[in-house]
């Protein structure tokens, strides 16, 4: 797709109008998003849904104040109306029009090989049916299987008064299997998501069958789960979804909006040791195909690989345009927004811990008693206090260096700066997992990653003594 969405001279006039009342900065963001989703439940294709939303958001910055307006009317009249609404924050403005000079359009084509629009619906349904069959065939205890497939094609053009003029095409594909298993002790659930910034080529029969088997196995395993322990224990996090730990324990606290408001425990700590020397943490928008990949961010800044913590020492925060401008530096390519109807803010992309040198099996073998978390299910943090939680949706006891009894779902709780110092082993088996990150009511796709690693202690929120 290389639809222009909006003409260069229209963008130019909208920016000129936005700057006219004496603004310091103006930006127009035009977006066209198509989504498609299908769901399977109780062996039936329940529903296919298609959606299209097109619109533009205009923001105007005057001093410390940002004015914002959005519209679904992409005519020049509609865009100018939004520009005037956004610019109304510039009360003292001098009037007139300021000329903005735009760079040549930087247009980043999608790297998707098979565009969702070119995939017959019947083919998607075939994959979902297959996942259902495989999950059900995994065991008699499986009583419910739900399969969801969704894709989105998002083209946007962003231009600002500093001359930035960029367009990106983002194609994302997501497939998820949820299972319920029934046993004597009640019901248990299993869940496996697959998600990438790729086209339909991402979904292979092998990967969806593996996801289906994984979700089914997880639900069945938990039928014999016992309540998780309570209190402090060493925890080994399996490679992949354990990355959520870093997303919550420090990722949000390293976002410059929290830093500049002194609402993060990591404010003023650049150059200081904030984590175990085994921790090198990176936020990387350039990981092609990953769920949090972006060619340019939603402010037109190219995605970048930013080292946040190196060998335990805090090296930098993540920045969007506004926050970077206040500090007289460049954005780090972390300005993201849910859609044209939202203001951009500092967000993570793919956040991961670099692999270490230990052997994953050895880490378990060298843990006399603890908890092995095979899958994490999301988390939450208070950046001002650093206290965070994350959920274990597949966990086991480690006894005498061996993985033993499965545990029921529970949250783990800790304090970011404290927990980061407790990373005492990192293995080589790096992998990533997709997630959806919510902040101030905006959802964006993000990736997390790490290799198998151990925390010397963290509080497990179970019920068993």
């Amino acid at each position, binding site marked *: 797709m290389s639809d222009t969405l909006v003409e260069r001279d229209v963008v130019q006039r909208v920016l000129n109008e936005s700057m006219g009342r004496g603004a310091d900065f103006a930006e127009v963001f035009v977006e066209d998003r198509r989504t498609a989703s299908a769901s399977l439940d*109780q062996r*039936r*294709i*329940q*529903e*296919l*849904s*298609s*959606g*299209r*939303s097109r*619109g533009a958001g205009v923001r105007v910055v005057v001093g*410390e*104040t940002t*004015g*914002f*307006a*959005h519209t*679904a009317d992409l005519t020049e009249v509609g865009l100018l109306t939004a520009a005037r609404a956004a610019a109304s*924050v510039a009360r003292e403005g001098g009037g007139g029009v300021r000329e903005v000079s735009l760079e040549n359009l930087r247009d980043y084509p999608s790297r998707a090989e098979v565009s969702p629009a070119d995939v017959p*619906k019947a083919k998607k*349904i075939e994959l979902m049916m297959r996942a259902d069959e495989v999950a059900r065939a995994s065991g008699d205890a499986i*009583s419910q299987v739900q399969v969801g497939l969704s894709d989105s094609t998002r083209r946007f053009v962003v231009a600002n008064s500093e001359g930035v003029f960029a367009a990106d095409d983002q194609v994302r594909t997501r497939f998820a299997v949820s299972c*319920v298993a*029934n046993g004597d002790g*009640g*019901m*248990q*659930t299993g869940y496996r998501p697959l998600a990438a910034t790729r086209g339909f080529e991402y979904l292979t029969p092998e990967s969806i069958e593996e996801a289906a088997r994984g979700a089914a196995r997880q639900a069945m395993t938990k039928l014999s789960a016992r*309540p*998780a322990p*309570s*209190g*402090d224990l060493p925890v080994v996090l399996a490679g992949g979804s354990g990355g959520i730990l870093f997303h919550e324990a420090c990722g949000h606290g390293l976002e410059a909006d929290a830093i500049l*408001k*002194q*609402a993060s*425990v990591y404010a003023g700590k650049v150059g200081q040791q904030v984590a175990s020397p085994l921790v090198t943490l990176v936020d990387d928008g350039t990981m092609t195909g990953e769920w949090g990949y972006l060619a340019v961010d939603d402010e037109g800044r190219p995605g970048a690989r930013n080292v946040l913590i190196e060998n335990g020492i805090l090296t930098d925060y993540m920045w969007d345009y506004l926050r970077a401008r206040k500090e007289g530096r460049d954005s780090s390519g972390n300005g993201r927004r849910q859609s044209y*109807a939202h*203001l951009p803010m500092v967000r993570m992309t793919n956040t991961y811990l670099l692999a270490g040198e230990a052997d994953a099996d050895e880490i378990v073998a060298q843990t006399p008693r603890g908890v092995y978390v095979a899958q994490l299910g*999301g988390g*939450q943090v208070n950046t*001002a*206090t650093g*206290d*965070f*939680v994350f*959920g274990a949706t597949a966990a086991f006891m480690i006894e005498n260096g061996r993985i033993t009894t499965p545990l*029921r*779902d*529970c*949250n783990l*709780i*800790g*304090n970011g700066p404290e927990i980061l110092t407790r990373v005492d082993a990192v293995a080589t088996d790096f992998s990533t997992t997709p997630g959806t990150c919510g902040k101030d009511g905006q959802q964006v796709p993000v990736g997390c990653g790490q290799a198998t690693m151990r925390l010397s202690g963290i*509080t*497990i*929120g*179970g*019920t068993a003594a």
Partner: protein
Amino acid sequence: MSELLAKAQSLLERVGAGEEMEVFISRGVETEVQAYQGEVENLSSSASAEIGIRILIDGPQGARVGTAYAGSLDEDAVAEALFNARDNAHFATEDEFVAFARPDGVAPVSLSLCDPAVTTTSMDVKVAMAIELEAMVRGGDQRIRQVDAANYSDYLADAAIASTTGICAALERSGAYVSVEAIASDGGEDQTGWGLSVGRAPGDLSLETAAGDAIRRATRMLGAVKPPSSKGIAVFDARTAATLWSILGSALSGDAVVRGRSFFAGRLGEVVASPLVTLIDDPTDARHFAASPFDSEGLASRRNELITQGRLQQFVYDTVSARRAGTVSTGNAVRGGVSGSPSAGCRALQLVSGDFDQDEIFRRVGNGVFVESLTGVHSGVNPISGDFSVGITGLMIRDGVLAEPIREVTIASTLQRMLLDVMFVGNDVQWLPGTTAAQTLAIDGVSLSGS
């Protein structure tokens, strides 16, 4: 007839032979102001309109539905949505229980949910409220070091649902909110607290309530410690209790029950909770913030008693889940905007109040933990298995009064157990934003995991 309803009905003329069609249009204007350090940080004003179209085709084994939506009411957007909905319908599996709602003779109550003051109040007044709120928090206590966000927001929205099966419903509503997050600091330690006030229009809001709540919650957490693990009574404030009840409400969805994804399945008529628990879903109660004359399929709202003195009385249904269960809709269709299909859910939950206020509950409980905030609800609560484990902050209750603040702890039990272990329901109901009103709630048998 509202203009929006007329538009929805006119679109029904495009229904094809052998099809049923449903049109759902929603439209709104919104304002949002954020204040920071005495100035406006962000000011947004927006208008939007969306349309969702569903097409149903009948077949030998049942009906199939296709859905599509558009973020604009322009003719080309509507035409594209209609085309896609029609095409999508052909790929669903025929299902004998799938149907659109039909009028069921229940008359809608008349509710006044819209206050035009939302749009007639000048932007200057709204901006002043956000700035004043921030100043009240900053000046309210010496220990307040920072105000992360002081917000004013409001909306005025209308919606219409019309279908070829005879549904014809329209409603208007407005809302206004202020919220503020404070950071209190003492000796290098930071704690946070947030406060809010909600209403139908700016004049309903109390800045004092929002500011006072944020200050009190942030400052009384200073000096928080991680307590030792224990098992005992947890007392939830109205906000955290509302979160609990809405999770339990999701397990009372007839859709979850009929699909075997609720621990309440097969337990109708049984005692599932303490006799103190009478849980009602009533969107016709005008005091409830989620009150509304219609559900998301356009059927009239009604009062449904779900649990009566501990006994499981009924589930909530939309049209399709009701047909699957061999019953009729309870007027509980919910959907997440125009993009989704309806499913069954609680819409305006409330619990019958008990006899005591919060202080009296503390006295009667004696020793326990008072829960003021929950974290990790989406990652640690499983409404299918009932497993419950969440992070909390709050205060210890000792000898019947609040004692030291606590942090970095979790509480855990199972939802099944917690319902049976309800000890007290307060008389201090709060009509909170969202779908659940609640009051102070005391639950026994909860594991506290700390040091």
